[in-house]
Every structure is written in structure tokens, then in C-alpha cells.
């Protein structure tokens, strides 16, 4: 490897790399992201290597291990170039056939293709509706490059923006471009990145620090991690450009220890960038010096909060600190510090390369560009999706997500991580951007998006998130620690049918209090799931007060019941019941002894005649009467 001395030197290297890439040559690109890895992608890679050897194609066909493509539930994903044939859920047993039929004979194996319910089999990755309806600016390169190869990144115009910034732009001009683009932070609050950079730049004190926040502790969210794993250089490039604009010479990448692949690929990427002279002293002969260190964080959800994260890098306990003086003035070791999210940094090279005006063509008035969401829950296609800001929730859930599975109805979508709000069906046409989500009591947060169908109990959901947050609260400040404790107790009582109207008042009072009085944003946002469900699904809370769980989820409020009209007396449920609560003669009607029933639902699952049902509330009293 040689140190690059200038931008023209880099341009030369890029041309060389492109020349070496023979675009007519077949390339098997195998996703090696965390999801596909868990489905055994590494074994598939070895199987391909062996098979190519066996079929004497070694050296004629290239193999690439890429980062996450976003459609992890269908992993391992294999894409064959130049045709871009996309095979899903590829197993070792499929490898031989893929090599002999697709690679050698150019034929397509239907069985491994994506099946669209309306249009049938889809051959090319980009035509799968899940991808087709996305705008993959930031995440798109993940699948085109080998995550461990800086050359792949450079060949795809990587580090071009850095070269441009260092050779053609003053730091002020870089800053102005980011400000003009109105790039807002992707990690939580949506604070304008340009303004943050400017305050760090103007704050007195040296040295100044820049930090990448790759803590990502939300359950179910993995976009930052996937970007860091799959395309670490895009984040590093953004960070160097930011440092240049701000006047910082030292950066940190805070990565959660539990993401070993992200740590590994980032470490390697830093080393590669150093070897090419893209990090270190006098980068590209510009006189600008910059180095990066990785900090491995021990995972707690709250460690991702900015002051907690900085404490942790300083070697102290990772707890939030009161910060009426912004971290942009007094951050890491009380020096001016700029902390941005992984995705925020990854946007920077695009803005510098293509300009703020180009960037502003995506998005809404006050939220520009795209956002990556982690779409999960009761939706047909789950995965990572990147969309322009302003797209509606309906478009994400139905066009990209493919709607709700099993013919069920949509009920709510929860946005922004554990402390986001639940948005009901009436708001599905809401354009997704920072301000619109706040208006309806939710937030962009990190970009978690959990879809819930009609079988979801909203009291149970509120309880689930409050429980998570009460466990993840650091416990430092009284409102968050004690307030959440009692909010959870009240929610437990509501779910158990032991609450009265005044408990809901108390819950509301506590929610407002925790929001106003807590020290950090964890507590300040923790009541969102409660307040939003109270706002949009109040009738469900009221039903619980009356002893009924309308969707029959809350165990204490339901009962299993066998409909004598429907029971055929097959005895299946009697055999399955672990506590012997069911009795009945063969071919006779079976009944459940409520006293012995532990509500495991085994009978409900096993009955072939739909004779077992869950009943709740008034219905329960009536049915109980008919039993006697």
C-alpha cells in the first residue's frame, strides 16, 4: 500500500482500481452482515469457494463479502453480478446448483427468487418492492462493496469528498455547505449538525474533539451498527471532513462492545485509512492532521446519551451529567466536543460531493435528506429501509413493508425507540419528518419503527416500554427512577384489572412530572408511550378498568372457554393441558376448570375446530354463568 500524496494521486489510484475491475466478470456477492451471518452466510461463502474450485472457476469468478443489505429476514442473501440476480435464503445445498446453472449456464433458479404476492417471481434485487420503493443514498453502497476493503470504497468514489474538501474548500466553506444543507442529527433530537459544528468551532479551548456515536442500544434497531459494519469508511470519511471544518485533530468512535463485527471492521478501516495516508499527519499533503481512536462501550441503553457517553470515554461511570453548558463548549475533558450519530456523519461525504442543493432535493421543508429506519413487528417485510424524509407512514408500512401479515388489520406504529409514541391508523398519512412526528407525540429518535396489528393490547405495549425504560434508567435522578417505578406499578395494576379511574389520573400526573423533572432525555421522553396510548387508545384503558382486555392479551383479564356448539370432543386439548384443567368424555363436550387453568393457551393453539376461545370482561361473567 502506498501513502497517497494528493488528490490527483488518489484519482490515479481510483482509475487503477477501476481498470482492474472487469465488469463483465461474474461476481458472487454474499451478505456477511450480522443478520445473514447468524443464518450461516460464512458457511455459504466457504461452500462457494469450494464449489468454484471444483468446477474449475477459481479466479474467474470473484467472491465478495458485503455488509447488510437490509432485508435480513430473508438471509443469507446472495447477489450475482453483473446480472444482479438476487437469491434469498441461500443454503449450502443450493451452492452447487447456483454455480453450475446460474454462473456457468446463465440460467435462473426460480425457487431462490423473491416471490411477490401480486407479480410473482422477481429476478433483480433492485426490483423487489422492498428495495424498489426506497431511496438508498447512504445505505445503498453497503451491498456494493466488500466491507473490509478500502479499495472497494475508493473505487466507488470513496474519499473523493475528503479530497475535495481538503484541496478545494476552506474549513469555513465546508461548514457553510453543511449548514446550507440543513443536515439534522440522525441519532435522536434532530439538532442541526451545521449549527453544532459551528458552536464547537467557535468555542474557546483546545484541543477540540469529534465523536461518532455508535452505541445504538434500542432493542430491535440496528441501522447504525449495520452501517458501521458494512461501510465503515463512509462514516470515517464524514468524521475527517467534520474535523477539518471544526478544527479538530482527534476523533473517537464509540462502538458498543456487543457489536464485535462493527468493532472489527472499524478497527481495520482506521488502519487502512492510516496506511493510505487518509488519517494521520498531513493528510493528502494538505497540512491537516487527524487521528481516530475506538472506544468500546459497555452496553447500557443510557450510555448512548451524550454526556454519559463522554463520561465513559473519560474513563468514568457512564452516567448522564447535567449540562446547562453545552458539550459543544465543554464536552469531553471539558473541551469543545462535537458528537454526532453514525448516520449523521455518513451523510457528510454525500453533501460535500454533490452539494447542499442536491441534498436539499430530498425531504421536506425542515427535514432534508433521507432517514434509515428499522422496520419491525407485524409487517410482511421487516428490515432496514432508507426513505426520503416526508414519505408517509402508510407508504413505508404498505409499499415497502408489504402491509400487515395474516390478513390482520393495522393498529398502531411506534416510532423512535422505546420512548417513542404510538401513532394510530388515523395518522398513517403523516409525512415522516422530525417535526411532524413530534407533533403527534412521537419522535424520530434513532429510527426504530415497530408495526403493531389489531391483536396488540396498547396497555400491554405501554407497560412493556415503561418496564424496559425503568430497567435501563441509570437510577441517578429521583423523577426517572422513582417515577417510572410507580408508573410501571400502575400499568401493571391496569393490566391486571386492579386499577380505578384515579389510577389513570395518577399515571397522567406522574407522566407529566417525569417528563418535566428528569435530568436527561431518557426520563424526559420515557412517558411518551404512556401519554400517546392514553391519547389515542383511551378506550382500551377504560375497558381494562371495567375488567376487560379488548384484544384479550392481558392474562389476568381473560379466560379460556370451550364453545359447546363447536367442540367435537376430540380430546386434543385435554391431552395438551399441562395442569389437567380440562375434562370431558371422548366425543363429548369438554370443559375447562377455571380454578386449575394457568392460561398457557395450549388448548387454544391445539384445537382444530376453533372451539377454544379467549373471553374477557362481561362476556366472561355470562359464560361463567352458563357453566354452572
Amino acid at each position, binding site marked *: 500500500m502506498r501513502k497517497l500524496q494528493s488528490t490527483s494521486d488518489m484519482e490515479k489510484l481510483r482509475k487503477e482500481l477501476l481498470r482492474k475491475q472487469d465488469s463483465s466478470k461474474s461476481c458472487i456477492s454474499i451478505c456477511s452482515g450480522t443478520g445473514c451471518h447468524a443464518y450461516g452466510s460464512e458457511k455459504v461463502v466457504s461452500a462457494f469457494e469450494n464449489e468454484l474450485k471444483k468446477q474449475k472457476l477459481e479466479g474467474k469468478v470473484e467472491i465478495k463479502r458485503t455488509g447488510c443489505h437490509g432485508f435480513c429476514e430473508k438471509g443469507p442473501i446472495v447477489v450475482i453480478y453483473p446480472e444482479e440476480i438476487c437469491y434469498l435464503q441461500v443454503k449450502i445445498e443450493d451452492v452447487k446448483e447456483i454455480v453450475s446453472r446460474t454462473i456457468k449456464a446463465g440460467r435462473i433458479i426460480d425457487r431462490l427468487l423473491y416471490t411477490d404476492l401480486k407479480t410473482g417471481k422477481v429476478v433483480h434485487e433492485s426490483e423487489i418492492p422492498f428495495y424498489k420503493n426506497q431511496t438508498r443514498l447512504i445505505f445503498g453502497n453497503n451491498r456494493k462493496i466488500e466491507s473490509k476493503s478500502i479499495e472497494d470504497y475508493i473505487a466507488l468514489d470513496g474519499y473523493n469528498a475528503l479530497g475535495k474538501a481538503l484541496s478545494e474548500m476552506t474549513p469555513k466553506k465546508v461548514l457553510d455547505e453543511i449548514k446550507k444543507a440543513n443536515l439534522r442529527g440522525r441519532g435522536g433530537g434532530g439538532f442541526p449538525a451545521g449549527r453544532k459544528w459551528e458552536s464547537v468551532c467557535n468555542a474557546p479551548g483546545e484541543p477540540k474533539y469529534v465523536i461518532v456515536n455508535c452505541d445504538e442500544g434500542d432493542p430491535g434497531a440496528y441501522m447504525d451498527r449495520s452501517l458501521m459494519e458494512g461501510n465503515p469508511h463512509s462514516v470515517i470519511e464524514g468524521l475527517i471532513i467534520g474535523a477539518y471544518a471544526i478544527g479538530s485533530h482527534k476523533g473517537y468512535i464509540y462502538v458498543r462492545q456487543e457489536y464485535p463485527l462493527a468493532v472489527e471492521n472499524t478497527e481495520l478501516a482506521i488502519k487502512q485509512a492510516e496506511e493510505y495516508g487518509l488519517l494521520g499527519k498531513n493528510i493528502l499533503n494538505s497540512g491537516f492532521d487527524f487521528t481516530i481512536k475506538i472506544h468500546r462501550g459497555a452496553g447500557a441503553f443510557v450510555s448512548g446519551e451524550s454526556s454519559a457517553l463522554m463520561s465513559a470515554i473519560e474513563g468514568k461511570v457512564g452516567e448522564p451529567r447535567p449540562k446547562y453548558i453545552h458539550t459543544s463548549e465543554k464536552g469531553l475533558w471539558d473541551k469543545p466536543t462535537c458528537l454526532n450519530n453514525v448516520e449523521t456523519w455518513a451523510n457528510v461525504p454525500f453533501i460535500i460531493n454533490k452539494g447542499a442543493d442536491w441534498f436539499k432535493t430530498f425531504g421536506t421543508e425542515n427535514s432534508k435528506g433521507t432517514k434509515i429506519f428499522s422496520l419491525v413487528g407485524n409487517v410482511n417485510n421487516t428490515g432496514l429501509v432508507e426513505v426520503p424524509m416526508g414519505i408517509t407512514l402508510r407508504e413505508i408500512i404498505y409499499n415497502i413493508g408489504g402491509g400487515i401479515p395474516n390478513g390482520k388489520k393495522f393498529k398502531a406504529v411506534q416510532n423512535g425507540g422505546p420512548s417513542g409514541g404510538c401513532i394510530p391508523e388515523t395518522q398513517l398519512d403523516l409525512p415522516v419528518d422530525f417535526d411532524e412526528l413530534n407533533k403527534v407525540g412521537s419522535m424520530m429518535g434513532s429510527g426504530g419503527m415497530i408495526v403493531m396489528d389489531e391483536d396488540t393490547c396498547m396497555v400491554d405495549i405501554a407497560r412493556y416500554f415503561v418496564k424496559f425504560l425503568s430497567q435501563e434508567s441509570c437510577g441517578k435522578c429521583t423523577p426517572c427512577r422513582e417515577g417510572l417505578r410507580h408508573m410501571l*406499578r400502575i400499568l401493571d395494576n391496569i393490566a391486571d384489572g386492579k386499577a380505578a379511574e384515579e389510577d389513570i389520573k395518577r399515571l397522567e400526573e406522574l407522566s407529566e412530572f417525569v417528563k418535566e423533572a428528569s435530568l436527561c432525555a431518557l426520563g424526559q421522553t420515557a412517558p411518551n408511550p404512556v401519554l400517546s396510548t392514553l391519547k389515542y387508545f383511551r378506550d382500551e384503558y377504560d375497558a381494562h378498568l371495567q375488567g376487560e382486555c379488548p384484544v384479550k392479551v392481558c392474562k389476568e383479564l381473560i379466560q379460556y372457554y370451550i364453545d359447546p356448539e363447536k367442540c367435537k370432543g376430540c380430546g386434543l386439548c385435554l391431552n395438551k393441558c399441562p395442569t389437567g384443567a380440562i375434562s370431558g368424555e371422548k366425543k363429548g363436550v369438554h370443559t375447562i376448570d377455571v380454578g386449575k387453568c394457568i392460561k398457557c393457551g395450549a388448548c387454544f393453539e391445539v384445537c382444530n375446530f376453533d372451539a377454544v376461545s379467549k373471553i374477557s370482561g362481561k362476556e366472561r361473567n355470562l359464560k361463567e354463568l352458563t357453566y354452572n
Partner: protein
Amino acid sequence: MENISLKINGKNVQAKKGMTIIQAAQQAGITIPNLCHDDRLEPYGACRFCMVEIEKNGRKKLVASCCYPVENGLAVNTKTEKVENIRKMLIELLLAVSPSGSHIELAKEYGIKESRFKLESSPEAPCDLCGLCVRYCTDIKKKNAVCFVGRGVDRTVALVPGASDGCSSCRECFDVCDAGKMVYLVDMLQEISCPPLKSKFYQNL
């Protein structure tokens, strides 16, 4: 040091740059309720009793006065309905954890005898998790013998095994802890080697 002038409860108050609101108030003879503030220690902002309403550029905001630095022209109100309600709620929540502790004086002051919230069990010794002991031992005594363990509702104060050998003879944290927790913890340590000490805390029980 640069002089700063601000208004607290309508009264003109002079302060020095770098002071917090609570310090400026104290100097002017205005007390703001607090549990976790100690002038010898770095601002901590945990108990939230010291929250006050400030007005700046026409916008009102709630802040912790033990952390917020004084600014020229700042208007501070230490007793608005909002902040008083926050304090009352804090008292109720702490009473639910323990009927004794540092919050008792405040409960009396606010006339709160009972909490609407209940917990099944009280801790072995009352503690409001103000962290004065931890910070005193770590930052002033530099002994690191007291620490927090656990997260969220499980957070508690504990002695650091090995580091707390000198505790029995030091005991300076007894003075910073109004709740009695440290007396309890250090005496427990002592009990292992010698008969229990009849301390203030036990006499109060």
C-alpha cells in the same frame, strides 16, 4: 471575577461568574430546597428538589438551580406552582421508599404526611441516593470506598470491598449523609470484627 446581576423572586441579586443559581440564592439569603447539593462538591443534579423556573429572552424553562450557571439578566422564580408541585411529588415518591431519610424535613415543611404511592418493602436503611457520600469519599477523601451499584430502581449505595478497610476510623461520610445509610453500612462492616456500635442512627430507631 466578572460580576453578574440577576433577579431571584423579584429581588436583585449580585453574583460572580461561574456561580450556580443555588449559590447566588444562598448568598442573598434565599433558600432553595435541595438534597444532593454540597458546596464542596461538583454539581450533581440528581434529587431535582432545587428545580426553579427561569425566564430568559421571554421564554420560561425549568432548570436544576444547583447546576445552572448565573447569567446577566436572568429572572429566577424559586416557588412557582410548577416547581412546588414537582417538589411535592418528589417528597411523596421518597416517602414511598422510606418513611425516614433526608426528605423528612422537607416533608414536614410541605406538610405532607402520607404518600399516595406504596411499595411492599422498605430498604434495610433509608437512602435517598443523593450520592453525597459517594462523591465526598471519591472526590474529597480520594478513598473510593463508597460506590453505587445497580441500575434504575435497583440502584443502591455500597461499600467497595477492599477499599473500605479504613472506613471504621474515618466515618466522615456520616456527616454528609442525613439519611443514616452510611452509619448503617459502616457499622455493618464494623460488626464483622467487633460488637455493634451504638450509633446515633440506632438510637433514633
